[in-house]
């Protein structure tokens, strides 16, 4: 009890609150990620007690992930990579004048999802981490493909075009130094390309600049209106009523998010895409996804914050980072003299209890801090579209530059912006491409290492039990739509026309 109450000590509570506002601020700026927010918090946290320092890290990461959804919903520019999936239906809701409702839902789902993630972290940490440890190259290869297949089927447009976008993304990920041999691929003697295409400028270009180009293509008349045509009115009760009716979706997405977060290397971004895909596939109205449906907002936003809890499972129990944020956290823990691993629960039990309590308190605070963030952001969006679009271009350029202080990344952002604009004209979804760039190295490395282990024999990729589960899930992802229609046809006699049409 003493450890739980320690969280409300001003020495812990105040740094937590400050870091949460900091997270809201950083996450809402495209190009500045949740990882960056945590990295910037770490130097300050060294001057505090271990619990206060880790409270700051937790607070900043939870709010930054939510805050990334604010520009994603209002402008279709994900503030952080984990907000990519939130652009799909959140932005469509904004177009319908329901942006504030989308963000209120997002905020509550982030808090509920985050709470579920933390509760799961407390309850099932050891067995889950054990399962994750059984993953070898073969399983990671299929996990990567599963994540990619989700993004293909969930995007707007047809599946074949989504598949082509995913493959183009994977091809883009091969640019740069080959990890196994060190050979520079598709670099054309350009030194900047040696380290590959940085995915954040690519993402800013594909989602941000392409949206600006789309808006300015119609001339200046439409640009003289305010950026969002709605009065930003936050209505928590309405949002809670909607969530109440869909609580199962929130719980399901949060559980999926936590499970994916628990797998080392798979963070909040993959969790959000996969849960969106699962929700679309199991929905009674999959055709509504991508048009501004509430479920399309609830699923990814519950999952991305829940995944943060998941990433702490392997970090705390085995000292293996679940994502880049926990990789930094592990470094910070070592600086505080805490050794992550199975013994942490015995040696630093008080601290672990404190961390869990902080994480739960942070979910409650997220709601208040989040509302402030939404309000602040909406003030900016009262400006004319032309002003905001010009600002977005400048921020996109600076956000791209700031990742590694490289002008080259501004050009990367530009190229991807033009590419995104043109691809959308021919109905090619952009989301699978960005996920292809993110997952490309994971898929290729595990495929090649796996093949190297077996001397080029693919059969082992199809033999291990967890691999078979993933293969079944991939097959199910692509065929479930037809399967459900067929089952309806058999059992209810419905959907005959649909089957005939297909």
């Amino acid at each position: 009890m003493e450890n739980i109450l320690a969280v409300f000590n001003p020495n812990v509570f105040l740094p937590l609150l400050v870091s949460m506002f900091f997270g809201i601020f950083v996450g809402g700026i495209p190009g500045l990620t949740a990882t960056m927010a945590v990295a910037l918090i770490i130097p300050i946290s060294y001057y505090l007690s271990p619990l206060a320092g880790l409270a700051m890290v937790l607070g900043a990461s939870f709010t930054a992930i939510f805050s990334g959804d604010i520009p994603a919903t209002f402008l279709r520019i994900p503030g952080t990579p984990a907000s990519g999936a939130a652009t799909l239906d959140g932005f469509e809701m904004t177009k319908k004048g329901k942006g504030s409702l989308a963000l209120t839902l997002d905020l509550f789902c982030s808090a509920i999802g985050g709470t579920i993630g933390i509760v799961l972290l407390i309850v099932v940490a050891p067995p889950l981490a054990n399962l994750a440890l059984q993953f070898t190259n073969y399983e990671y290869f299929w996990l990567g493909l599963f994540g990619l297949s989700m993004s293909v089927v969930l995007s707007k447009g047809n599946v074949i075009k989504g598949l082509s976008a995913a493959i183009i993304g994977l091809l883009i990920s091969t640019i740069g130094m080959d990890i196994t041999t060190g050979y520079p691929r598709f670099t054309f003697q350009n030194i900047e390309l040696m380290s590959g295409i940085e995915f954040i400028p690519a993402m800013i270009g594909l989602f941000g600049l392409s949206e600006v180009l789309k808006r300015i293509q119609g001339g200046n008349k439409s640009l003289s209106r305010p950026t969002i045509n709605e009065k930003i009115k936050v209505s928590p009760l309405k949002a809670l009523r909607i969530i109440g009716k869909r609580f199962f979706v929130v719980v399901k997405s949060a559980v999926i998010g936590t499970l994916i977060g628990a797998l080392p290397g798979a963070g909040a971004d993959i969790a959000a895409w996969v849960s969106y895909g699962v929700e679309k596939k199991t929905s009674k109205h999959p055709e509504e996804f991508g048009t501004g449906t509430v479920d399309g907002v609830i699923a990814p936003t519950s999952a991305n914050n829940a995944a943060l809890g998941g990433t702490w499972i392997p970090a705390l129990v085995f000292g293996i980072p679940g994502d880049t944020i926990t990789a930094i956290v592990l470094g910070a823990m070592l600086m505080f003299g805490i050794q992550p691993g199975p013994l942490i629960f015995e040696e630093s039990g008080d601290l672990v209890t404190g961390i869990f309590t902080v994480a739960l308190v942070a979910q409650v605070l997220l709601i208040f801090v989040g509302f402030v963030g939404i309000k602040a952001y909406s003030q900016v969006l009262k400006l004319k579209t032309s002003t905001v679009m010009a600002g977005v271009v400048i921020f996109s350029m600076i956000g791209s530059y700031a990742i590694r202080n490289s002008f080259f990344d501004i050009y990367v952002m530009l190229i991807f912006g033009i590419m995104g604009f043109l691809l959308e004209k021919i109905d090619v979804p952009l989301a699978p491409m960005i996920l292809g760039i993110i997952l490309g190295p994971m898929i290729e490395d595990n495929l090649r290492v796996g093949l190297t282990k077996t001397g080029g024999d693919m059969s082992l990729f199809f033999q291990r039990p967890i691999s078979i589960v993933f293969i079944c899930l991939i097959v199910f992802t692509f065929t479930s739509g037809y399967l459900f229609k067929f089952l309806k046809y058999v059992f209810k006699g419905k959907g005959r026309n649909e089957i005939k049409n297909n």
Partner: protein
Amino acid sequence: MSKYKNLIYSLKRLFRQVPYYMSKYKNLIYGVLLIALSVFVIMYSTGFPKYVVRGHELPGPSFFPTVLSIFLIAIGLYEILKDIVDNIRKKERKVKDDSHITKRGIINILVTVAGIILFVPLIDIIGFKLGAFIFATFLMYLLGIKFIRSLIYSAVLTAVIIVIFELLFRIPFPQGYILPF
């Protein structure tokens, strides 16, 4: 003179029809581009070294791009065939009305893209902050904001950028060699 007029008129007419044909054969164009990209990747990958360990050849740097390109060729062929079949059947396509592009819109896009391209060499001369201020003013003015307002908004925007990136996050902005801002 009338010859030139006719030629210009014909070219204008042809130019006006470009969006129509682009829209009509968009899948075919996409398919051809996918195949062209894949063929380029496969050809280029043949120059990559082989990965041989103890005399045994293993998947090297060209393996993954080549496999992906083969899939992409298949998709390209599918898109081409689908487009041809659809056009033969004269299947009606959905026309998006929100993607209407105007003359002014084309100017906006071209100037914005050119502005971003020129931004980098410009800041070499006048520095990042002044460059951002000038570019933001120019962009806002282009998109229909009055000049004085553009100046004010851009000054605020630049100040915000300096506070966030330079003062808070210590991200160094490059200075120009003529004007050190």
